[in-house]
């Protein structure tokens, strides 16, 4: 494969596509597929054949606003139809060349206006199972450019220059990580992709792997070239069967095209990728546990240092990045580090994909430039809280994150601002909660999650989260005392400080952040045996005592 051949493929795809007058893209991501996108596609195919028009029906990855699914986009007019069923297929086909179907059209302009698509630039535009589709949209051009025109150091420099930070949650500077692995001594090095997305309500990485798998492969190949590795592993959880099959297909196609394997681009560079399935342990998203799992051992974290960059898989220097981080690599190499650096806020560059869920009108996948104000995401992109309810809090960062109260919506979304607010950026889950959510119950839910997902190796995380869960359950059932609350705060401190890995160190965050911003709800539960949101079923009788003066 050479750059010319790549361009030749792209050209032939464009030629092939230009034979069609219309392109009808059907979103076949999980959310749309579960609402009948399969049937819709069959109906569209049938209707298209009968109509005599030349129509290309393409199945694509996630288009974004999942709550409006199944989604169909008709090109070249870029007409977006929402909530389409197979009964609408005929009407859509008939409308081609005429006015769009009015009853299916949706007004999502505001939803898309504030978004900037880098990671998701191809999602909804290509068939994820066709490598040529990806190539036709500048796919693998970055890899070829890197191999033929850049030194490994040059690639690392470009990533450093871009200011990209790890998208898995920690926000470690990607360029720095790459240069550490590049400088590590050893002739065998590994590149690992962390696709063990496990935060409740988060599905960014799944959508990227399902909707644009080649982007991840290309990012990994560039990384391998930069750090001097020739073997890569993608660690995906087995609960993502579609992602696994798309990645498997993508790797096979890339090998066939000579984009993986030996002498890629007729250079000395060899690289191949293997998929490893995770068995659903949340802790395997922690890098040392993930590496242990790839090696076939029990997925438990190890104390760092040594960091994987020095001693990772089988003791060799290993570069481990998240799916979304790799998905950012190709555009950075293609467009330059400066281009990426100019997006985003002061210390958080580029864009971030968020999975917007909960009590919000437009749930789904969004990609926004970092630094965007939280209210812009909630009110404009998300379309606000439905049903006349009032926004209460936004939970970011999953079980490691925290709740940001409604009066802090002016916050710019960046690694540092979220951290200062007591939450974290995390991998990109964003759960919107309205006045029907009880914050104590939310904290208990996340602690329960951490308790069941703790690996059990270190005591503070194993026993501490279980104790926190017991005490929070007491509060939620009206059986707690103020002494229990004190104990909770002490336990949070110990678990946060003394735990071995990130899971335990961040497990108390949901409790700490709700205590910080919604302490009165805890007090209500404890003192008045009352759940303000009406969520918790109190077992203790409601107190008739006059309210205590509590300065919280």
């Amino acid at each position, binding site marked *: 494969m050479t750059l010319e051949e790549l361009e030749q493929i792209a050209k032939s795809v464009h030629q092939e596509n230009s034979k069609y007058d219309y392109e009808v893209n059907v979103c076949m991501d999980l959310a749309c597929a579960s609402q009948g996108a399969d049937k819709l596609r069959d109906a569209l195919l049938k209707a298209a054949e009968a109509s005599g028009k030349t129509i290309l029906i393409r199945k694509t990855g996630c288009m974004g606003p999942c709550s409006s699914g199944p989604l169909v986009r008709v090109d070249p007019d870029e007409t977006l139809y929402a909530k389409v069923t197979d009964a609408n297929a005929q009407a859509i086909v008939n409308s081609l060349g005429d006015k769009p179907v009015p009853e299916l059209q949706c007004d999502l302009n505001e939803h898309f206006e504030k978004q900037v698509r880098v990671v998701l630039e191809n999602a909804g535009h290509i068939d994820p199972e066709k490598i040529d589709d990806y190539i036709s949209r500048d796919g693998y051009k970055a890899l070829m450019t890197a191999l033929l025109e850049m030194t490994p150091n040059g690639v690392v420099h470009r990533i450093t220059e871009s200011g990209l930070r790890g998208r898995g949650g920690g926000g470690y500077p990607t360029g720095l990580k790459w240069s550490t692995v590049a400088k590590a001594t050893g002739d065998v090095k590994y590149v690992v992709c962390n696709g063990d997305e496990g935060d409740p309500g988060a599905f960014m990485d799944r959508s990227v792997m399902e909707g644009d798998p080649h982007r991840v492969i290309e990012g990994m190949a560039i990384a391998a070239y930069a750090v001097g590795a020739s073997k890569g592993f993608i660690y995906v959880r087995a609960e993502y069967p579609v992602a696994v099959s798309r990645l498997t297909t993508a790797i096979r196609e890339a090998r066939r095209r000579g984009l993986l394997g030996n002498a890629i681009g007729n250079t000395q560079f060899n690289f191949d990728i293997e998929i490893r399935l995770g068995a659903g*342990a949340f*802790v395997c998203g922690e890098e040392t546990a993930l590496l242990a799992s790839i090696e076939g051992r*029990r997925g438990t974290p*190890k*104390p760092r240092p040594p960091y994987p960059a020095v001693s990772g898989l089988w003791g060799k220097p290993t570069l481990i990045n998240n799916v979304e981080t790799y998905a950012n690599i190709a555009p950075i190499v293609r467009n330059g580090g400066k281009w990426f650096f100019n997006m985003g806020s002061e210390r958080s560059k580029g864009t971030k994909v968020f999975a917007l869920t909960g009590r919000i009108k437009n749930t789904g996948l969004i990609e926004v430039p970092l630094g965007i104000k939280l209210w812009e995401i909630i009110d404009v992109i998300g379309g606000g809280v439905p049903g006349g309810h009032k926004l209460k809090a936004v939970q970011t960062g999953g079980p490691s994150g925290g709740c940001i109260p409604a009066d802090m919506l002016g916050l710019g979304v960046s690694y540092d601002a979220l951290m200062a607010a007591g939450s974290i950026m995390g991998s990109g889950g964003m759960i919107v909660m309205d006045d029907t959510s009880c914050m104590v119950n939310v904290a208990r839910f996340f602690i329960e999650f951490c*308790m*069941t*997902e*703790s*690996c*059990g*190796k*270190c*005591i*503070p*995380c*194993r*026993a*501490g*989260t*279980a*104790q926190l869960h*017991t*005490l929070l359950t007491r509060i939620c059932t009206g059986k707690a005392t103020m002494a229990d609350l004190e*104990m909770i705060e*002490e*336990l949070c401190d*110990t678990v946060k*400080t*003394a*735990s*071995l890995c990130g899971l335990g160190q961040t497990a108390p965050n949901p409790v700490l952040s709700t205590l910080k911003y919604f302490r009165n709800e805890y007090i209500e539960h404890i003192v008045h045996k009352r759940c303000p949101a009406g969520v918790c079923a109190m077992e203790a009788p409601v107190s008739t005592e006059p309210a205590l003066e509590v300065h919280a």
Partner: protein
Amino acid sequence: MSDTPEVKTLVIDGQEVSARRGQTILEVAQENEIHIPTLCHLDGLSNVGACRMCLVEIKGSNKLLPACVSTVFEGMEVTTNSERLQRYRRNILEMLFAERNHICSVCVANGHCELQALAQDQGLTHVRLPYRNPGLPVDASHERFTADHNRCILCTRCVRVCAEVEGAHVWDVAGRGINSMIITDLHEDWGSSTCTRCGKCVQVCPTGALFDKSKIGSDHPKYPDFLPYLNLMREAR
């Protein structure tokens, strides 16, 4: 790394000490008779840094480091016994006591238990946390030994000694989080497992979780000191 001196000097609890490159804080402290509490660590086994008892403070860093796996660096200033560290240690011990059923008065290891000794050492007089009182099984299927899971603290010394020293790897951990349990083979009874009956796991077990049947009702001290000696003899061979 020829420009890196092989000998480091550092300060532990105000005492100036020297160390070889690559030594852990715990090793250096022990050489200088500075006491750092440990539980999962045992001389002769690999370190896992799991119990968090040996956490120490390093000047200039907010993070606490486990002394058993953290190597020394030049000019390091270590505090091993601050108020804060004591609080965390007591808290962790409380968690352990509340986690399973540790009733010293009816325990075969009473008076010879590292958990008990550590609690006394750290001045833990009572447990404020709610006891979990799990109903855990006792495996008495082995002809010589018994495993009482109610007394297990999941330090994994048995797992390590079986895999690293005996080379049998009969013990392992099953389950996750609070439901973790040590098991033999693929969760079979100890008696019908591939156990070699060497008894090393019983000797290294810090509590009364693994004990010798012949010692029931009598004093049951354990002798884990054979490990460093055994390792030394093997290396010499």
